[in-house]
Protein backbone atom coordinates (compact mmCIF):
# COMPACT_ATOMS: atom_id res chain seq x y z
CA UNK A 1 0.00 0.00 0.00
CA UNK A 2 1.53 3.28 -1.00
CA UNK A 3 2.09 6.26 1.26
CA UNK A 4 -0.40 8.39 -0.67
CA UNK A 5 -3.21 5.94 0.01
CA UNK A 6 -2.39 5.78 3.71
CA UNK A 7 -2.48 9.56 3.92
CA UNK A 8 -5.78 9.77 2.02
CA UNK A 9 -7.36 7.20 4.33
CA UNK A 10 -6.00 8.98 7.39
CA UNK A 11 -7.49 12.24 6.13
CA UNK A 12 -10.91 10.66 5.69
CA UNK A 13 -10.70 9.13 9.16
CA UNK A 14 -9.38 12.37 10.65
CA UNK A 15 -6.30 10.71 12.08
CA UNK A 16 -2.83 12.16 11.82
CA UNK A 17 0.16 9.95 11.27
CA UNK A 18 3.82 10.40 12.12
CA UNK A 19 6.32 9.04 9.61
CA UNK A 20 6.66 5.90 11.75
CA UNK A 21 2.94 5.45 11.84
CA UNK A 22 2.68 5.81 8.08
CA UNK A 23 5.20 3.01 7.61
CA UNK A 24 3.42 0.95 10.23
CA UNK A 25 0.09 1.30 8.48
CA UNK A 26 1.65 0.63 5.11
CA UNK A 27 2.98 -2.70 6.37
CA UNK A 28 0.10 -3.73 8.60
CA UNK A 29 -2.73 -2.74 6.32
CA UNK A 30 -1.06 -4.34 3.34
CA UNK A 31 -0.66 -7.56 5.30
CA UNK A 32 -4.27 -7.59 6.37
CA UNK A 33 -5.68 -6.58 3.01
CA UNK A 34 -3.54 -9.26 1.40
CA UNK A 35 -5.11 -11.81 3.74
CA UNK A 36 -8.51 -10.77 2.43
CA UNK A 37 -7.76 -12.18 -1.00
CA UNK A 38 -9.98 -15.17 -0.28
CA UNK A 39 -12.89 -12.77 -0.09
CA UNK A 40 -12.06 -10.43 -2.90
CA UNK A 41 -11.52 -13.40 -5.18
CA UNK A 42 -14.64 -15.22 -4.06
CA UNK A 43 -16.82 -16.01 -7.04
CA UNK A 44 -20.40 -15.61 -6.12
CA UNK A 45 -23.14 -17.28 -8.07
CA UNK A 46 -25.54 -14.39 -8.75
CA UNK A 47 -28.41 -16.50 -7.44
CA UNK A 48 -26.65 -16.69 -4.11
CA UNK A 49 -25.73 -13.05 -3.97
CA UNK A 50 -29.13 -11.65 -3.08
CA UNK A 51 -29.35 -9.93 0.24
CA UNK A 52 -30.93 -11.85 3.02
CA UNK A 53 -32.28 -9.91 5.94
CA UNK A 54 -30.06 -10.69 8.87
CA UNK A 55 -33.01 -10.44 11.19
CA UNK A 56 -36.00 -12.68 10.91
CA UNK A 57 -38.40 -11.05 8.49
CA UNK A 58 -40.52 -9.00 10.80
CA UNK A 59 -44.23 -9.37 10.34
CA UNK A 60 -45.10 -5.92 11.51
CA UNK A 61 -48.15 -5.27 13.62
CA UNK A 62 -51.30 -4.14 11.86
CA UNK A 63 -51.25 -0.56 10.57
CA UNK A 64 -48.27 0.57 12.61
CA UNK A 65 -48.32 3.75 10.53
CA UNK A 66 -51.49 4.85 12.27
CA UNK A 67 -50.04 4.69 15.78
CA UNK A 68 -49.70 8.09 17.50
CA UNK A 69 -46.19 9.48 17.38
CA UNK A 70 -45.75 10.36 21.09
CA UNK A 71 -42.60 12.45 20.81
CA UNK A 72 -40.32 12.60 23.85
CA UNK A 73 -37.34 14.87 24.39
CA UNK A 74 -35.55 12.27 26.48
CA UNK A 75 -32.21 14.02 26.90
CA UNK A 76 -32.20 16.96 29.27
CA UNK A 77 -29.99 19.83 28.17
CA UNK A 78 -28.06 19.54 31.45
CA UNK A 79 -27.14 15.97 30.61
CA UNK A 80 -25.98 16.98 27.14
CA UNK A 81 -23.88 19.87 28.40
CA UNK A 82 -22.47 18.04 31.44
CA UNK A 83 -20.33 15.88 29.17
CA UNK A 84 -19.32 18.69 26.78
CA UNK A 85 -15.64 19.69 26.78
CA UNK A 86 -16.52 23.30 25.96
CA UNK A 87 -19.80 25.11 26.11
CA UNK A 88 -21.30 28.57 26.03
CA UNK A 89 -24.68 29.06 27.61
CA UNK A 90 -27.03 26.51 26.06
CA UNK A 91 -24.68 25.69 23.21
CA UNK A 92 -21.74 23.36 22.71
CA UNK A 93 -18.79 25.37 21.45
CA UNK A 94 -16.13 24.50 18.87
CA UNK A 95 -13.64 26.63 16.89
CA UNK A 96 -15.37 28.55 14.13
CA UNK A 97 -16.01 26.08 11.32
CA UNK A 98 -15.99 28.77 8.67
CA UNK A 99 -12.31 29.55 9.24
CA UNK A 100 -10.56 27.41 6.73
CA UNK A 101 -6.99 27.13 7.92
CA UNK A 102 -6.20 23.99 5.93
Amino acid at each position, binding site marked *: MDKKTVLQVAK*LAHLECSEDEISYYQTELSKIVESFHDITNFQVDTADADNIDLTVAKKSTEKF*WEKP*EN*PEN*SLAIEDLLAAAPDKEGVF*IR*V*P*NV*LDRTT
Partner: protein
Amino acid sequence: MIEYDTVIGIEIHCQLASQKKIFCQSENAFGNSPNYHIDPTCTGLPGALPVLNPKCVSLALRLALATDSAIAPRSSFDRKNYFYPDNPKGYQITQFRTPFCSEGKITLKSGKKIRIQRIQLEEDAGKSIHVGDASLLDYNRSGVGLIEIVSHPDISSPEEAIEYLKIIHNLVVHLEISDGNMEQGNFRADANVSIKPKGSPILGNRVEIKNVNSFKYLEKAVQYEVQRQARVLSEGQPIVQETRGFDSDKNETFSQRTKEDAQDYRYFPEPDLPDLLISEEWISSVKESMPELPQIRSLRYQDKYDLPVYDADLIASWKEGSQYFDNLLSRVSPQVTPKIVSNFYMAEILKIVKISQENKGTQEITEVPYPLDWAATILLETQKGKITGRLAKEVLDLSFEKNQDPKIIIQEKGFTVLDDPQAIEKVIIEITLKHSSEVKAYQEGKEKLFGFFVGQVMKVTAGKADPKVVNDILKKVLLGK
Protein backbone atom coordinates in the same frame (compact mmCIF):
# COMPACT_ATOMS: atom_id res chain seq x y z
CA MET B 1 -23.03 33.57 -32.62
CA ILE B 2 -23.53 30.19 -31.02
CA GLU B 3 -26.91 29.49 -29.54
CA TYR B 4 -27.10 27.44 -26.43
CA ASP B 5 -29.64 25.15 -24.83
CA THR B 6 -29.99 25.55 -21.10
CA VAL B 7 -30.12 22.36 -19.06
CA ILE B 8 -31.28 22.60 -15.46
CA GLY B 9 -31.89 20.01 -12.76
CA ILE B 10 -33.37 20.94 -9.41
CA GLU B 11 -32.68 19.31 -6.03
CA ILE B 12 -35.07 20.13 -3.23
CA HIS B 13 -34.65 19.35 0.46
CA CYS B 14 -37.98 19.59 2.20
CA GLN B 15 -38.56 19.07 5.92
CA LEU B 16 -41.37 16.70 6.86
CA ALA B 17 -43.99 18.11 9.21
CA SER B 18 -44.21 15.07 11.48
CA GLN B 19 -44.49 15.53 15.25
CA LYS B 20 -41.40 13.46 15.87
CA LYS B 21 -38.06 13.41 14.08
CA ILE B 22 -37.46 10.70 11.49
CA PHE B 23 -35.08 8.33 13.26
CA CYS B 24 -35.51 9.21 16.92
CA GLN B 25 -38.07 10.11 19.50
CA SER B 26 -37.59 13.82 20.11
CA GLU B 27 -40.02 16.46 18.92
CA ASN B 28 -39.89 18.15 15.56
CA ALA B 29 -40.70 21.74 16.44
CA PHE B 30 -39.48 25.23 15.74
CA GLY B 31 -38.71 28.27 17.78
CA ASN B 32 -37.85 26.84 21.16
CA SER B 33 -34.71 27.30 23.17
CA PRO B 34 -31.59 25.60 21.68
CA ASN B 35 -30.81 21.99 22.55
CA TYR B 36 -34.31 21.42 23.85
CA HIS B 37 -35.77 18.91 21.36
CA ILE B 38 -33.06 16.31 21.79
CA ASP B 39 -32.44 12.70 22.75
CA PRO B 40 -29.41 10.36 22.72
CA THR B 41 -29.84 9.40 19.04
CA CYS B 42 -29.95 12.83 17.40
CA THR B 43 -27.06 14.06 19.53
CA GLY B 44 -24.93 11.06 18.58
CA LEU B 45 -24.33 9.78 22.10
CA PRO B 46 -22.37 6.52 22.39
CA GLY B 47 -24.68 3.50 22.14
CA ALA B 48 -27.73 5.33 20.76
CA LEU B 49 -29.67 3.79 17.86
CA PRO B 50 -32.04 5.05 15.12
CA VAL B 51 -35.64 3.83 14.76
CA LEU B 52 -37.72 4.84 11.74
CA ASN B 53 -40.83 6.98 12.36
CA PRO B 54 -43.51 5.63 9.99
CA LYS B 55 -45.33 8.97 9.95
CA CYS B 56 -42.46 10.46 7.97
CA VAL B 57 -42.87 7.74 5.39
CA SER B 58 -46.63 8.36 5.21
CA LEU B 59 -46.03 12.07 4.56
CA ALA B 60 -43.45 11.30 1.90
CA LEU B 61 -45.82 8.80 0.28
CA ARG B 62 -48.33 11.61 -0.29
CA LEU B 63 -45.85 13.32 -2.56
CA ALA B 64 -45.00 10.04 -4.26
CA LEU B 65 -48.69 9.58 -5.07
CA ALA B 66 -49.18 13.17 -6.17
CA THR B 67 -46.25 12.91 -8.59
CA ASP B 68 -47.19 9.50 -10.00
CA SER B 69 -43.91 8.05 -8.77
CA ALA B 70 -43.13 4.34 -8.73
CA ILE B 71 -43.09 3.30 -5.08
CA ALA B 72 -40.54 0.64 -4.17
CA PRO B 73 -42.12 -2.10 -2.08
CA ARG B 74 -38.73 -2.56 -0.47
CA SER B 75 -36.03 0.06 0.01
CA SER B 76 -33.17 0.52 2.42
CA PHE B 77 -31.13 3.14 4.22
CA ASP B 78 -27.46 4.04 3.89
CA ARG B 79 -24.89 5.89 5.92
CA LYS B 80 -23.26 8.91 4.33
CA ASN B 81 -20.02 9.36 6.27
CA TYR B 82 -18.44 12.78 6.78
CA PHE B 83 -17.21 14.97 9.65
CA TYR B 84 -18.98 18.21 10.49
CA PRO B 85 -20.01 19.57 13.89
CA ASP B 86 -23.71 19.72 13.00
CA ASN B 87 -23.53 16.03 12.05
CA PRO B 88 -23.21 14.44 15.50
CA LYS B 89 -22.97 10.78 14.55
CA GLY B 90 -20.27 11.47 11.95
CA TYR B 91 -22.69 10.14 9.33
CA GLN B 92 -26.10 11.03 7.94
CA ILE B 93 -28.73 8.35 7.44
CA THR B 94 -30.12 8.64 3.90
CA GLN B 95 -31.30 6.52 0.98
CA PHE B 96 -28.47 6.50 -1.51
CA ARG B 97 -28.83 3.20 -3.33
CA THR B 98 -32.57 2.60 -3.06
CA PRO B 99 -34.84 5.65 -2.74
CA PHE B 100 -38.35 4.73 -1.64
CA CYS B 101 -39.81 6.09 -4.87
CA SER B 102 -38.61 7.13 -8.30
CA GLU B 103 -39.59 8.22 -11.80
CA GLY B 104 -42.41 10.58 -10.96
CA LYS B 105 -43.40 13.66 -12.94
CA ILE B 106 -45.14 16.98 -12.75
CA THR B 107 -46.66 18.96 -15.61
CA LEU B 108 -45.95 22.61 -16.29
CA LYS B 109 -48.62 25.06 -17.57
CA SER B 110 -47.22 24.62 -21.05
CA GLY B 111 -47.99 20.91 -20.86
CA LYS B 112 -44.30 20.00 -20.68
CA LYS B 113 -43.53 17.24 -18.22
CA ILE B 114 -40.62 17.48 -15.81
CA ARG B 115 -39.52 14.05 -14.62
CA ILE B 116 -38.59 13.45 -11.01
CA GLN B 117 -35.72 11.00 -10.81
CA ARG B 118 -36.05 10.12 -7.15
CA ILE B 119 -37.46 11.09 -3.79
CA GLN B 120 -35.47 9.81 -0.83
CA LEU B 121 -35.91 9.88 2.93
CA GLU B 122 -33.12 11.28 5.07
CA GLU B 123 -32.38 13.28 8.20
CA ASP B 124 -31.49 16.93 8.69
CA ALA B 125 -28.36 18.17 10.44
CA GLY B 126 -28.15 20.40 13.48
CA LYS B 127 -27.51 24.13 13.31
CA SER B 128 -24.39 26.11 13.99
CA ILE B 129 -24.17 29.80 14.79
CA HIS B 130 -20.85 31.41 14.00
CA VAL B 131 -19.79 34.04 16.51
CA GLY B 132 -16.28 35.42 16.56
CA ASP B 133 -13.76 32.62 16.70
CA ALA B 134 -16.32 30.04 17.74
CA SER B 135 -19.20 28.08 16.32
CA LEU B 136 -22.08 27.33 18.66
CA LEU B 137 -23.98 24.08 18.13
CA ASP B 138 -27.72 23.51 18.48
CA TYR B 139 -29.13 20.03 17.87
CA ASN B 140 -32.85 20.90 17.79
CA ARG B 141 -32.92 20.41 14.04
CA SER B 142 -30.64 17.38 14.05
CA GLY B 143 -32.61 14.34 12.98
CA VAL B 144 -35.65 16.17 11.60
CA GLY B 145 -37.10 14.19 8.67
CA LEU B 146 -36.33 15.36 5.14
CA ILE B 147 -37.25 14.30 1.68
CA GLU B 148 -34.78 15.03 -1.07
CA ILE B 149 -36.50 15.48 -4.43
CA VAL B 150 -34.20 15.21 -7.43
CA SER B 151 -35.44 16.10 -10.89
CA HIS B 152 -34.05 14.89 -14.17
CA PRO B 153 -32.30 17.72 -16.04
CA ASP B 154 -35.49 18.30 -18.07
CA ILE B 155 -35.80 21.98 -17.24
CA SER B 156 -34.81 24.33 -20.03
CA SER B 157 -35.11 27.84 -18.61
CA PRO B 158 -35.00 29.82 -15.37
CA GLU B 159 -38.75 30.45 -15.73
CA GLU B 160 -39.46 26.73 -16.00
CA ALA B 161 -37.23 26.13 -12.99
CA ILE B 162 -39.21 28.52 -10.84
CA GLU B 163 -42.51 27.15 -12.12
CA TYR B 164 -41.36 23.63 -11.23
CA LEU B 165 -40.29 24.79 -7.79
CA LYS B 166 -43.57 26.55 -7.15
CA ILE B 167 -45.56 23.50 -8.21
CA ILE B 168 -43.63 21.24 -5.86
CA HIS B 169 -43.86 23.84 -3.12
CA ASN B 170 -47.60 24.11 -3.59
CA LEU B 171 -47.96 20.36 -3.46
CA VAL B 172 -46.02 19.91 -0.24
CA VAL B 173 -47.96 22.69 1.42
CA HIS B 174 -51.33 21.54 0.11
CA LEU B 175 -50.73 17.97 1.06
CA GLU B 176 -49.59 19.10 4.50
CA ILE B 177 -46.30 17.32 4.04
CA SER B 178 -44.30 20.35 5.09
CA ASP B 179 -44.71 23.94 6.20
CA GLY B 180 -42.66 24.74 3.13
CA ASN B 181 -41.30 27.92 4.61
CA MET B 182 -38.16 28.87 2.72
CA GLU B 183 -37.19 31.57 5.19
CA GLN B 184 -37.38 29.18 8.13
CA GLY B 185 -35.33 26.71 6.15
CA ASN B 186 -37.82 23.93 5.82
CA PHE B 187 -37.85 24.12 2.02
CA ARG B 188 -34.44 24.43 0.33
CA ALA B 189 -33.61 24.25 -3.35
CA ASP B 190 -30.39 23.86 -5.30
CA ALA B 191 -30.08 24.17 -9.06
CA ASN B 192 -27.67 22.32 -11.33
CA VAL B 193 -27.10 24.45 -14.41
CA SER B 194 -25.25 23.72 -17.62
CA ILE B 195 -25.45 24.84 -21.22
CA LYS B 196 -24.72 23.09 -24.48
CA PRO B 197 -24.70 24.10 -28.12
CA LYS B 198 -28.24 24.07 -29.44
CA GLY B 199 -29.32 20.56 -30.40
CA SER B 200 -26.11 18.95 -29.24
CA PRO B 201 -26.55 15.66 -27.39
CA ILE B 202 -23.46 16.27 -25.27
CA LEU B 203 -24.13 17.91 -21.92
CA GLY B 204 -21.83 20.62 -20.68
CA ASN B 205 -20.17 20.77 -17.27
CA ARG B 206 -22.61 21.32 -14.43
CA VAL B 207 -22.45 24.11 -11.93
CA GLU B 208 -24.37 23.67 -8.69
CA ILE B 209 -26.06 26.75 -7.26
CA LYS B 210 -26.65 26.39 -3.52
CA ASN B 211 -27.79 28.32 -0.45
CA VAL B 212 -30.27 30.61 -2.18
CA ASN B 213 -33.31 30.99 0.00
CA SER B 214 -36.00 32.55 -2.14
CA PHE B 215 -37.64 31.74 -5.45
CA LYS B 216 -36.97 35.22 -6.70
CA TYR B 217 -33.24 35.05 -6.03
CA LEU B 218 -32.92 31.54 -7.36
CA GLU B 219 -34.47 32.62 -10.64
CA LYS B 220 -32.04 35.54 -10.84
CA ALA B 221 -29.14 33.29 -9.94
CA VAL B 222 -29.99 30.81 -12.67
CA GLN B 223 -30.48 33.61 -15.21
CA TYR B 224 -27.10 35.09 -14.32
CA GLU B 225 -25.41 31.70 -14.39
CA VAL B 226 -26.70 30.81 -17.85
CA GLN B 227 -25.37 34.09 -19.21
CA ARG B 228 -22.09 33.70 -17.35
CA GLN B 229 -21.52 30.25 -18.80
CA ALA B 230 -22.25 31.47 -22.32
CA ARG B 231 -19.77 34.26 -21.79
CA VAL B 232 -17.11 31.92 -20.47
CA LEU B 233 -17.49 29.54 -23.40
CA SER B 234 -17.45 32.32 -25.92
CA GLU B 235 -14.09 33.38 -24.45
CA GLY B 236 -12.84 29.88 -25.23
CA GLN B 237 -12.63 28.91 -21.54
CA PRO B 238 -14.07 25.71 -20.09
CA ILE B 239 -16.82 25.67 -17.49
CA VAL B 240 -15.37 24.60 -14.14
CA GLN B 241 -17.54 22.04 -12.37
CA GLU B 242 -18.13 23.72 -9.01
CA THR B 243 -20.55 24.96 -6.39
CA ARG B 244 -21.58 28.59 -6.55
CA GLY B 245 -23.61 30.82 -4.28
CA PHE B 246 -25.63 33.91 -5.16
CA ASP B 247 -24.82 37.45 -4.14
CA SER B 248 -28.17 39.24 -4.05
CA ASP B 249 -26.58 42.68 -3.90
CA LYS B 250 -24.47 42.20 -6.98
CA ASN B 251 -26.98 39.89 -8.62
CA GLU B 252 -24.16 37.50 -9.45
CA THR B 253 -23.18 33.93 -8.68
CA PHE B 254 -19.80 33.37 -7.05
CA SER B 255 -17.59 30.34 -6.59
CA GLN B 256 -17.82 28.42 -3.30
CA ARG B 257 -16.11 25.09 -3.70
CA THR B 258 -14.87 23.07 -6.64
CA LYS B 259 -16.01 19.52 -7.20
CA GLU B 260 -12.39 18.42 -6.95
CA ASP B 261 -12.79 18.78 -3.23
CA ALA B 262 -15.65 16.34 -3.52
CA GLN B 263 -15.85 14.16 -0.49
CA ASP B 264 -15.65 10.39 -0.45
CA TYR B 265 -18.76 9.60 1.60
CA ARG B 266 -18.05 5.88 1.85
CA TYR B 267 -21.74 4.99 1.57
CA PHE B 268 -22.69 1.60 2.99
CA PRO B 269 -26.02 0.09 4.09
CA GLU B 270 -27.22 1.27 7.49
CA PRO B 271 -26.95 -1.85 9.69
CA ASP B 272 -29.14 -0.45 12.47
CA LEU B 273 -32.27 -0.18 10.32
CA PRO B 274 -34.10 -3.05 8.64
CA ASP B 275 -35.32 -2.59 5.08
CA LEU B 276 -38.36 -0.38 4.62
CA LEU B 277 -41.32 -2.44 3.46
CA ILE B 278 -44.16 -0.39 1.98
CA SER B 279 -47.30 -2.47 1.55
CA GLU B 280 -50.27 -1.83 -0.72
CA GLU B 281 -52.32 -1.44 2.42
CA TRP B 282 -50.11 1.36 3.66
CA ILE B 283 -50.29 3.12 0.32
CA SER B 284 -54.10 2.87 0.23
CA SER B 285 -54.30 4.18 3.74
CA VAL B 286 -52.23 7.21 2.76
CA LYS B 287 -54.32 7.78 -0.35
CA GLU B 288 -57.51 7.81 1.66
CA SER B 289 -56.31 10.12 4.36
CA MET B 290 -54.30 12.65 2.40
CA PRO B 291 -55.61 16.18 1.85
CA GLU B 292 -57.28 16.87 -1.47
CA LEU B 293 -55.03 18.04 -4.28
CA PRO B 294 -55.88 21.36 -5.95
CA GLN B 295 -56.45 19.71 -9.32
CA ILE B 296 -58.85 17.20 -7.81
CA ARG B 297 -60.62 19.86 -5.83
CA SER B 298 -61.07 21.97 -8.93
CA LEU B 299 -62.62 19.05 -10.75
CA ARG B 300 -64.94 18.51 -7.82
CA TYR B 301 -66.10 22.11 -8.03
CA GLN B 302 -66.68 21.76 -11.74
CA ASP B 303 -68.63 18.54 -11.42
CA LYS B 304 -70.59 19.11 -8.28
CA TYR B 305 -71.24 22.82 -8.43
CA ASP B 306 -71.05 23.38 -12.15
CA LEU B 307 -68.44 26.09 -11.70
CA PRO B 308 -66.54 27.10 -14.82
CA VAL B 309 -62.96 25.87 -15.07
CA TYR B 310 -61.39 29.26 -14.45
CA ASP B 311 -63.42 29.83 -11.27
CA ALA B 312 -62.87 26.29 -10.03
CA ASP B 313 -59.10 26.49 -10.57
CA LEU B 314 -58.85 29.87 -8.90
CA ILE B 315 -60.75 28.85 -5.79
CA ALA B 316 -59.07 25.43 -5.54
CA SER B 317 -55.57 26.86 -5.80
CA TRP B 318 -55.44 28.21 -2.25
CA LYS B 319 -56.00 25.51 0.33
CA GLU B 320 -57.29 27.59 3.25
CA GLY B 321 -59.41 29.69 0.90
CA SER B 322 -61.07 26.68 -0.66
CA GLN B 323 -61.84 25.28 2.78
CA TYR B 324 -63.43 28.61 3.60
CA PHE B 325 -65.40 28.46 0.39
CA ASP B 326 -66.56 24.92 1.12
CA ASN B 327 -67.65 25.85 4.63
CA LEU B 328 -69.36 29.04 3.49
CA LEU B 329 -71.25 27.20 0.81
CA SER B 330 -72.49 24.53 3.16
CA ARG B 331 -73.62 27.24 5.55
CA VAL B 332 -75.68 29.18 3.05
CA SER B 333 -77.05 26.53 0.74
CA PRO B 334 -79.52 25.74 -0.50
CA GLN B 335 -80.79 29.32 -0.31
CA VAL B 336 -77.67 30.71 -1.97
CA THR B 337 -76.34 28.99 -5.10
CA PRO B 338 -72.72 27.89 -5.55
CA LYS B 339 -72.29 30.33 -8.41
CA ILE B 340 -73.26 33.26 -6.22
CA VAL B 341 -71.00 32.11 -3.42
CA SER B 342 -68.10 31.63 -5.81
CA ASN B 343 -68.58 35.06 -7.32
CA PHE B 344 -68.74 36.58 -3.87
CA TYR B 345 -65.63 34.67 -2.83
CA MET B 346 -63.61 35.61 -5.87
CA ALA B 347 -64.66 39.24 -6.07
CA GLU B 348 -65.05 40.18 -2.43
CA ILE B 349 -63.27 37.72 -0.16
CA LEU B 350 -60.11 37.53 -2.22
CA LYS B 351 -60.11 41.32 -2.35
CA ILE B 352 -60.09 41.43 1.43
CA VAL B 353 -57.29 38.86 1.51
CA LYS B 354 -55.25 41.06 -0.77
CA ILE B 355 -55.83 44.11 1.42
CA SER B 356 -54.79 42.08 4.43
CA GLN B 357 -51.58 41.00 2.72
CA GLU B 358 -50.76 44.59 1.83
CA ASN B 359 -51.43 45.74 5.37
CA LYS B 360 -49.23 43.04 6.84
CA GLY B 361 -46.58 43.44 4.19
CA THR B 362 -46.34 39.74 3.51
CA GLN B 363 -47.47 37.14 1.03
CA GLU B 364 -47.72 34.60 3.84
CA ILE B 365 -51.33 34.40 4.86
CA THR B 366 -52.67 31.23 6.37
CA GLU B 367 -56.36 31.94 6.73
CA VAL B 368 -59.13 34.10 5.37
CA PRO B 369 -59.15 37.20 7.57
CA TYR B 370 -62.93 37.52 7.69
CA PRO B 371 -65.20 35.49 9.96
CA LEU B 372 -67.22 32.85 8.15
CA ASP B 373 -70.41 33.70 10.04
CA TRP B 374 -70.26 37.28 8.86
CA ALA B 375 -69.77 36.27 5.25
CA ALA B 376 -72.70 33.90 5.58
CA THR B 377 -74.83 36.69 7.04
CA ILE B 378 -74.12 39.00 4.16
CA LEU B 379 -74.93 36.34 1.58
CA LEU B 380 -78.12 35.28 3.30
CA GLU B 381 -79.36 38.82 3.87
CA THR B 382 -78.74 39.60 0.23
CA GLN B 383 -80.50 36.46 -0.90
CA LYS B 384 -83.46 37.18 1.37
CA GLY B 385 -83.66 40.58 -0.21
CA LYS B 386 -82.97 42.41 2.99
CA ILE B 387 -80.11 44.33 1.39
CA THR B 388 -79.25 44.90 -2.21
CA GLY B 389 -76.32 43.25 -3.89
CA ARG B 390 -74.68 46.62 -4.33
CA LEU B 391 -74.97 47.49 -0.67
CA ALA B 392 -73.73 44.08 0.31
CA LYS B 393 -70.29 45.07 -0.98
CA GLU B 394 -70.35 48.23 1.07
CA VAL B 395 -71.43 46.33 4.16
CA LEU B 396 -68.57 43.88 3.69
CA ASP B 397 -65.98 46.59 3.30
CA LEU B 398 -67.19 48.48 6.34
CA SER B 399 -67.53 45.31 8.38
CA PHE B 400 -63.94 44.31 7.59
CA GLU B 401 -62.58 47.77 8.17
CA LYS B 402 -64.29 48.24 11.50
CA ASN B 403 -64.15 44.56 12.45
CA GLN B 404 -67.84 44.68 13.17
CA ASP B 405 -70.64 42.20 12.71
CA PRO B 406 -72.40 43.08 9.42
CA LYS B 407 -75.79 42.78 11.11
CA ILE B 408 -74.89 45.75 13.26
CA ILE B 409 -73.70 47.75 10.29
CA ILE B 410 -76.83 47.03 8.31
CA GLN B 411 -78.88 48.19 11.25
CA GLU B 412 -76.87 51.26 12.17
CA LYS B 413 -76.48 52.50 8.65
CA GLY B 414 -80.07 51.76 7.87
CA PHE B 415 -78.97 49.74 4.87
CA THR B 416 -82.02 47.58 5.03
CA VAL B 417 -83.58 47.38 1.69
CA LEU B 418 -86.48 49.55 0.94
CA ASP B 419 -89.10 47.32 -0.59
CA ASP B 420 -92.29 48.91 0.63
CA PRO B 421 -94.28 49.52 -2.61
CA GLN B 422 -96.05 52.58 -1.32
CA ALA B 423 -92.82 54.27 -0.25
CA ILE B 424 -91.22 53.50 -3.52
CA GLU B 425 -94.22 54.65 -5.49
CA LYS B 426 -94.07 57.89 -3.63
CA VAL B 427 -90.43 58.37 -4.55
CA ILE B 428 -91.10 57.47 -8.15
CA ILE B 429 -93.97 59.86 -8.47
CA GLU B 430 -91.89 62.68 -7.09
CA ILE B 431 -89.21 61.91 -9.66
CA THR B 432 -91.63 61.78 -12.55
CA LEU B 433 -92.92 65.14 -11.51
CA LYS B 434 -89.39 66.55 -11.46
CA HIS B 435 -88.41 65.06 -14.79
CA SER B 436 -91.60 65.38 -16.79
CA SER B 437 -89.85 65.93 -20.12
CA GLU B 438 -87.97 62.68 -19.74
CA VAL B 439 -91.24 60.96 -18.89
CA LYS B 440 -92.72 62.28 -22.09
CA ALA B 441 -89.67 61.15 -24.10
CA TYR B 442 -89.90 57.67 -22.62
CA GLN B 443 -93.57 57.40 -23.33
CA GLU B 444 -92.84 58.40 -26.93
CA GLY B 445 -90.46 55.45 -27.31
CA LYS B 446 -87.06 56.35 -25.80
CA GLU B 447 -86.92 53.14 -23.82
CA LYS B 448 -83.28 53.69 -22.81
CA LEU B 449 -84.47 56.37 -20.38
CA PHE B 450 -85.78 53.65 -18.10
CA GLY B 451 -82.28 53.25 -16.75
CA PHE B 452 -82.14 56.97 -16.02
CA PHE B 453 -85.22 56.72 -13.83
CA VAL B 454 -83.88 53.69 -12.03
CA GLY B 455 -80.70 55.62 -11.34
CA GLN B 456 -82.67 58.52 -9.95
CA VAL B 457 -84.62 56.24 -7.64
CA MET B 458 -81.38 54.72 -6.39
CA LYS B 459 -79.88 58.16 -5.86
CA VAL B 460 -82.82 59.30 -3.79
CA THR B 461 -83.01 56.10 -1.76
CA ALA B 462 -79.22 55.89 -1.35
CA GLY B 463 -79.23 52.57 -3.15
CA LYS B 464 -81.58 50.90 -0.74
CA ALA B 465 -84.52 50.46 -3.01
CA ASP B 466 -85.27 46.92 -4.00
CA PRO B 467 -84.57 46.84 -7.73
CA LYS B 468 -87.40 44.44 -8.52
CA VAL B 469 -90.00 46.49 -6.81
CA VAL B 470 -88.62 49.62 -8.41
CA ASN B 471 -88.80 48.03 -11.85
CA ASP B 472 -92.40 46.92 -11.43
CA ILE B 473 -93.71 50.17 -10.03
CA LEU B 474 -91.69 52.36 -12.35
CA LYS B 475 -93.04 50.53 -15.36
CA LYS B 476 -96.54 50.90 -14.07
CA VAL B 477 -96.10 54.57 -13.30
CA LEU B 478 -94.38 55.49 -16.53
CA LEU B 479 -96.83 53.68 -18.70
CA GLY B 480 -99.88 54.11 -16.58
CA LYS B 481 -99.95 57.81 -16.35
